[in-house]
């Protein structure tokens, strides 16, 4: 995953939000994933219209974290989602 990549959620997954947690089920692997508040927001922002860098910028504004942390977390989190086919680039 690179900062210039544009991730988009995989709509084949079953998704449900409960309080501040998003649950995503991958039908192919039967795996259930859950994201915390920050992960939830990154998931929402991965709609195919923003680069990873832009998602990280939004996290900086909304969660008052520094840019380096946000970029590192976004790359790691979205990269992991990509490896599990929960997002695609």
């Amino acid at each position, binding site marked *: 995953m690179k900062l210039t990549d544009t991730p988009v959620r995989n709509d084949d997954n079953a998704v*449900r939000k*409960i*309080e501040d*947690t998003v649950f995503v089920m991958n*039908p*192919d692997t*039967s795996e259930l994933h*859950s994201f915390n508040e920050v992960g939830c927001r990154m998931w929402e922002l991965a709609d195919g219209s923003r680069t990873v860098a832009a998602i990280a910028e939004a996290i900086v504004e909304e969660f008052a974290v520094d840019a380096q942390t946000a970029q590192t977390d976004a790359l790691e989190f979205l990269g992991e989602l990509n490896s599990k086919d929960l997002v695609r680039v």
Partner: protein
Amino acid sequence: MNHPVEPRCFRVGALVAEVRGLSFPLEAGSGWLPQFATNVDAPADFSVDVSCGDLPGSALRSSGVRAVRVDRSQRTIWLDMNELVARLRLADRHVDARLGGSWVYSLETLLKNAAQIFGLELRKALYLHASSVDRAGLAYVFLGRSEAGKSTAALISREAGLARVLREEMTAVGDLSRAEPVRVFTLPSVEEHGLSAGPAAVPLRGLYWLQQDSVDSVNRISVPEQVRRLAMATSICVRDEMLMIPALELAEQLVRRVPVRVLRFRKSAEFWKAIDEDLVSDA
């Protein structure tokens, strides 16, 4: 060959199935299904048309899913199992099935898988990989990862004379579509240690996620974490979005009515003291 015979109704967990086309006597021979027969006038949640003996079958063949096909646009599921093939039409609440031989076990397998699917479709019931016990007329369900001690907790409770075992491996919980108290239902089958409580519907008192530990304690967790653990324990024979979304919905509904607690226990019946203390503090 399909013989026209009178329909039979069976309670399968929280649901009732109306079955037509049985050409063999259920009462003769083994199998627990006849115990779960219910009044033919009972409102059925789903209907089943079976033809028997159209598949090559063997009484030695074990149950197992060979293939699954899902058509979301038609809301139809095809199950190809060792002992049966079935087409489930969710919108019609109907199943067409061919069973391998005059074999009660095939029918039990068909009904349990169908009840799982329709339980979710109707937003009525969850089928959990869990043990359950009846203690003084109230049901307690034990969830957890493999080898967490689900069967152990049930069996040591029975051996201590504190509870009777309802189910060891698969527990049905419902009716989540109604406001009445949630109940644990038994299913027609014999389990690992030869235990089966027969037909029962017991009010649910507690859901416990088990963790073996050196102390006995009951701990509270957040609603999302409760849902996550319940979803992990939910049995869905067909892993498709059509069923997985209702599974999450029902899991959330259930935990808001009966919360999931984490039970750390030492593999002795002493854990009931921790449960009782927690329930008293919750009152």
